[in-house]
C-alpha cells in the first residue's frame, strides 16, 4: 500500500489558502480560527448560564426581598444552568476550543485531518446553541426537568416546559452530538495519524493525551445520550412508552403504559459519568503541562500519568450507576458500582500526588496561569474527597439530593475544570493573540475566584448535612432546617455575586490586552512544547512555514542538569555526550 505519512510527503502539500475576510474568519477551515469560534460561543453561553445561577442565588439568598423569578422559572433556570455549564460550555470549550487549538500545534500538524468537517462541526454546534436559546421564546419556555431530564416527570404536564421545552432541549442535544462527533473524529484521527516526525505517542504532551482520551470517551458515551434522547422524543411526540409507566396524572389515567423510567437513568448515566471525565481529562492534561512549565520541572512520572489517564477513561464506563443508588436497584449492583467507583479513585489520586511531586522543589513561578493551576489542585482534591463519601452506598443515601451533592459536583466538575480553563486561557493567551495579558488584573481575578468559590461551595456541604434539599425554590419552614440556614444562604449569595463580578475583570482583561497588551514574544514562558516554537506568533495558516518541525525529545526537559538553558524545546536535537533522556532510556533497558 503506497501510503505515505504526512510528515514524509513532499512539503508542497498545500492547504487551500483563504483569501477573503469571510473565508478567513467566518467560514474558516483553519483549526485555530475554529477553536476561537468555539471558545467565544462557549464562553458566551457560559456567561448566560452564570447569569441564570445568579438569578437562582438571589432567590435562595433573599427569598423575601426579591420577586425576580417564579418557582417554575427556578426549575427552568436550574435545568438550563446545569445543562449549559456541563455540555455547551465545558465540553465545547475543552474539546472544541482547546482540542482544536492545541492538537495540531502540539502534534506538529498543519491542521486537522479533515478541515471542512471541522468547520461544519462548529456551525452545527452554534446551531445547537441557537436552538437551545430558542426555547426561551416558545410558549411554555425551556424545560424544567433538571439537567438529568428524568422521565416520567420530564414529559408529564406538571413540569414546566413539558410541552415544547423538552422537545427543543432534546433536539438541541442531538445536534450537539452530531457536532461533537464531526469534531471528535477529527481530533482522534489527527492525534493517531498526523503527528510530525519524531512525535511518538509517548512523547506527546499530556494536554494532548487528556484531550485525546476524553474525545474517545465522548465518541463512545454520547451515543447513549443520543439513544435516550431519541426514545424520549418518541415518547413525547408520538406516544410510545419506552420510559413511561402506567400512571395517574391528576387523577386521570395516562396514555402510557409498561415503560421503564430506570432504563432512561441507565442510558443517561452511561453517558453522564464518562461526561464528567470528558471534562476532567483535558483539564488533567492541560494542568500537568502548565504546572511543569511554570515550576521548571519535568512532570513527575510521565508514563504513569499517561496510563492513569487511560485507566480513568476505561474505568469511567463502569461506574455509572453510582448516580442511581436511590433509584431502586438490586443491592448487589450498588455493591459493584461502589467498588468500581472507589477503584477509580486510585489512578486519580496518583495524578494528584504526581502534580504535587512535580511542584516539590521546583522553581515555582507564581504567575497567573500557575496560580490557577495550583488552585485547581486544591479544589479538585477537595471535590474528589467528597466524592468518596458519595461513592459509598450507605453514606450516599442520606446525602443524595441534598446540597452536599451540589457542593461536591461544583467543586469537582464546576470549579476545578473552570480554574484549569482560566489557567489555560492565560497560559496560551500570548500565543493565541500575540499579546500579554495584564498580570495584576489576572491575579485579582484569581484570588477573587478561588476564595469566592470556596465561600460558595464549602458552606453547601454543611447545608447538605443538615438535609437541605437541592433544586428547591425556597425552603419554607421545616423542623430540620434551622433559621440560621437562611443567613448562610444569604452569605453564599453574596459570595456568588462577588465571583460573578470578578469574571468581569477577566473579560475586561482579555479584551483590553488584545489591543493594549504588551507584544508577546513567541515563547514567553520558555516552554518546550511545539506550539511555542512556531515561526510566527500567532501562528499563521499552516502553522509551520515551509517545514514541519522535527521532534527529538519528550515535552518536559526543564532544568536538565548540565544544560545551558533551563529548558530544551522538543525540537532540540539530542547532542552527543548529553545526558540521555528519560524516554530514550525507557526504550533501552
Amino acid at each position: 500500500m503506497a501510503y505515505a505519512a504526512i510528515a514524509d510527503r513532499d512539503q508542497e502539500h498545500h492547504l487551500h489558502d483563504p483569501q477573503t475576510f469571510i473565508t478567513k474568519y467566518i467560514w474558516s477551515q483553519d483549526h485555530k480560527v475554529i477553536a476561537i469560534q468555539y471558545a467565544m460561543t462557549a464562553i458566551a453561553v457560559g456567561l448566560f448560564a452564570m447569569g441564570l445561577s445568579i438569578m437562582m442565588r438571589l432567590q435562595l439568598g433573599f427569598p423575601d426581598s426579591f420577586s425576580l423569578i417564579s418557582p417554575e422559572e427556578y426549575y427552568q433556570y436550574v435545568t438550563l444552568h446545569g445543562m449549559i455549564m456541563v455540555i455547551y460550555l465545558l465540553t465545547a470549550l475543552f474539546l472544541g476550543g482547546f482540542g482544536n487549538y492545541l492538537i495540531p500545534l502540539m502534534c506538529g500538524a498543519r491542521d486537522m485531518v479533515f478541515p471542512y468537517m471541522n468547520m461544519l462541526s462548529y456551525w452545527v454546534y452554534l446551531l445547537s446553541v441557537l436552538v437551545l436559546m430558542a426555547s426561551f421564546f416558545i410558549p411554555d419556555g425551556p424545560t424544567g426537568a433538571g439537567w438529568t431530564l428524568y422521565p416520567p416527570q420530564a414529559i408529564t404536564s406538571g413540569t414546566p416546559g413539558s410541552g415544547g421545552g423538552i422537545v427543543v432541549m432534546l433536539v438541541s442535544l442531538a445536534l450537539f452530538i452530531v457536532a461533537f462527533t464531526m469534531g471528535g473524529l477529527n481530533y482522534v484521527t489527527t492525534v493517531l495519524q498526523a503527528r510530525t516526525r519524531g512525535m511518538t505517542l509517548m512523547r506527546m504532551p499530556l494536554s494532548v493525551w487528556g484531550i485525546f482520551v476524553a474525545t474517545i470517551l465522548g465518541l463512545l458515551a454520547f451515543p447513549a445520550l443520543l439513544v435516550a434522547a431519541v426514545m424520549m422524543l418518541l415518547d413525547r411526540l408520538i406516544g410510545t412508552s419506552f420510559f413511561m409507566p402506567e400512571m395517574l396524572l391528576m387523577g386521570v389515567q395516562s396514555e402510557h403504559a409498561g415503560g421503564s423510567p430506570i432504563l432512561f437513568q441507565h442510558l443517561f448515566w452511561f453517558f453522564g459519568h464518562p461526561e464528567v471525565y470528558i471534562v476532567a481529562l483535558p483539564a488533567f492534561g492541560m494542568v500537568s503541562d502548565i504546572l511543569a512549565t511554570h515550576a521548571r520541572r519535568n512532570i513527575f512520572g510521565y508514563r504513569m500519568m499517561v496510563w492513569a489517564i487511560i485507566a480513568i477513561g476505561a474505568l469511567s464506563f463502569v461506574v455509572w450507576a453510582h448516580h442511581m443508588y436511590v433509584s431502586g436497584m438490586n443491592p448487589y449492583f450498588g455493591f459493584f458500582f461502589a467498588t468500581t467507583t472507589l477503584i477509580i479513585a486510585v489512578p486519580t489520586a496518583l495524578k494528584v500526588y504526581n502534580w504535587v511531586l512535580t511542584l516539590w522543589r521546583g522553581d515555582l513561578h507564581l504567575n497567573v496561569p500557575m496560580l490557577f493551576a495550583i488552585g485547581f489542585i486544591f479544589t479538585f482534591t477537595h471535590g474528589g474527597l467528597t466524592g468518596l463519601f458519595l461513592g459509598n452506598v450507605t453514606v450516599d443515601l442520606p446525602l443524595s439530593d441534598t446540597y452536599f451533592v451540589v457542593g461536591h459536583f461544583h467543586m469537582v466538575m464546576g470549579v476545578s475544570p473552570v480554574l484549569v480553563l482560566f489557567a489555560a486561557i492565560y497560559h496560551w493567551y500570548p500565543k493565541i493573540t500575540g499579546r500579554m495579558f495584564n498580570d495584576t488584573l489576572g491575579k485579582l481575578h484569581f484570588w477573587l475566584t478561588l476564595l469566592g468559590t470556596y465561600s460558595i461551595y464549602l458552606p453547601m456541604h454543611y447545608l447538605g448535612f443538615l438535609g437541605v434539599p437541592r433544586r428547591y425554590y425556597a425552603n419554607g419552614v421545616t423542623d430540620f432546617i434551622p433559621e440560621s440556614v437562611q443567613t448562610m444562604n444569604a452569605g453564599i449569595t453574596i459570595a456568588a455575586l462577588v465571583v460573578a463580578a470578578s469574571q468581569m475583570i477577566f473579560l475586561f482583561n482579555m479584551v483590553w490586552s488584545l489591543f493594549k497588551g504588551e507584544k508577546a514574544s513567541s515563547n514567553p514562558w520558555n516552554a518546550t512544547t511545539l506550539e511555542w516554537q512556531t515561526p510566527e506568533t500567532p501562528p499563521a495558516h499552516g502553522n509551520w512555514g515551509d517545514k514541519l518541525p522535527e521532534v527529538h525529545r519528550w515535552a518536559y526537559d526543564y532544568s536538565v542538569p548540565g544544560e545551558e538553558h533551563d529548558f530544551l524545546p522538543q525540537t532540540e536535537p539530542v547532542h552527543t555526550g548529553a545526558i540521555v533522556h528519560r524516554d530514550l532510556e525507557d526504550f533501552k533497558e
Partner: protein
Amino acid sequence: MAHDATALGAGLTPGLRGIGSDWAGDKQTFHVPWGKAMMWIFLLSDTFIFTCFLTGYMHVRASTRIPWPNPSEVFALSFGGEPIPLILIAIMTFILITSSGTMAMAVNMGYRGHRAKTASLMLMTAALGAMFVGMQAFEWTKLIIDEGVRPWSNPMGAPQFGAVFFMITGFHGLHVSIGVIYLTTVAMKVLRGDYKKRGYEIVEITGLYWHFVDLVWVFIFAFFYLW
C-alpha cells in the same frame, strides 16, 4: 516505507515492548489513510449507538408485563394459505449478505484499477440495498395496515413491540438508505475517473461502512426475529 531513524526503536525491539513502541511510533499509529482510520472510529461510535438501542430493547422487553408477540407468527407470510415463518426476513437477510459480497468484489476491482467494473459492482450493491429498503417498506406497510401495529399500541401484546420494532429497524433502514446514496455517489465519481490519481481507497472505506451496516443487521435479526 516511512520508518526512519527517529521512529524510536520501531521494529528493532523484540516482544511485547516492540509491539508497543511500534504502535506508538511517530507520525501515524496505523498505516492506513486518514479517511479509513476515521471511518473505523466512526463505526466504533456507531456500534455504541446500536448497542444502546438493542440493550434498551432487551430491557424494555424484559420489564414489560404484557406478553411479547411471537415473532415467528408476526413475521410470517402466507403463500397459498400456508404461513411460512420469517420468510420475508430470510430473503431480506440474504439480499443484504449478497450485497456485502458484491461490495467486496468492488473493492478488489478498485485496487486493480478497473474503473468500470468497480463502479458497476458498487451500483449493484446499491441496488441490492435499495431492494432491502423496499422490502422493509413492504414489511412496515403490512404490519401497519394489515395487523394494526402502531408505535404506541399493538393488538398482539406489548405496545413496546411496535415501538422498538419501528425505531430500531427504522434506524437501521436509515443507515442502509444513507449507504445507498453514499455508494451511488462514490460509484459515479469512480466512473468519472476522480480517483485515478488519488487511488481507490475510498471504495474500501465505503465498503467498511456497508459491511458494518450488514453486520448490524445480523444482530438485529438475531435479537429481534429469532428471540
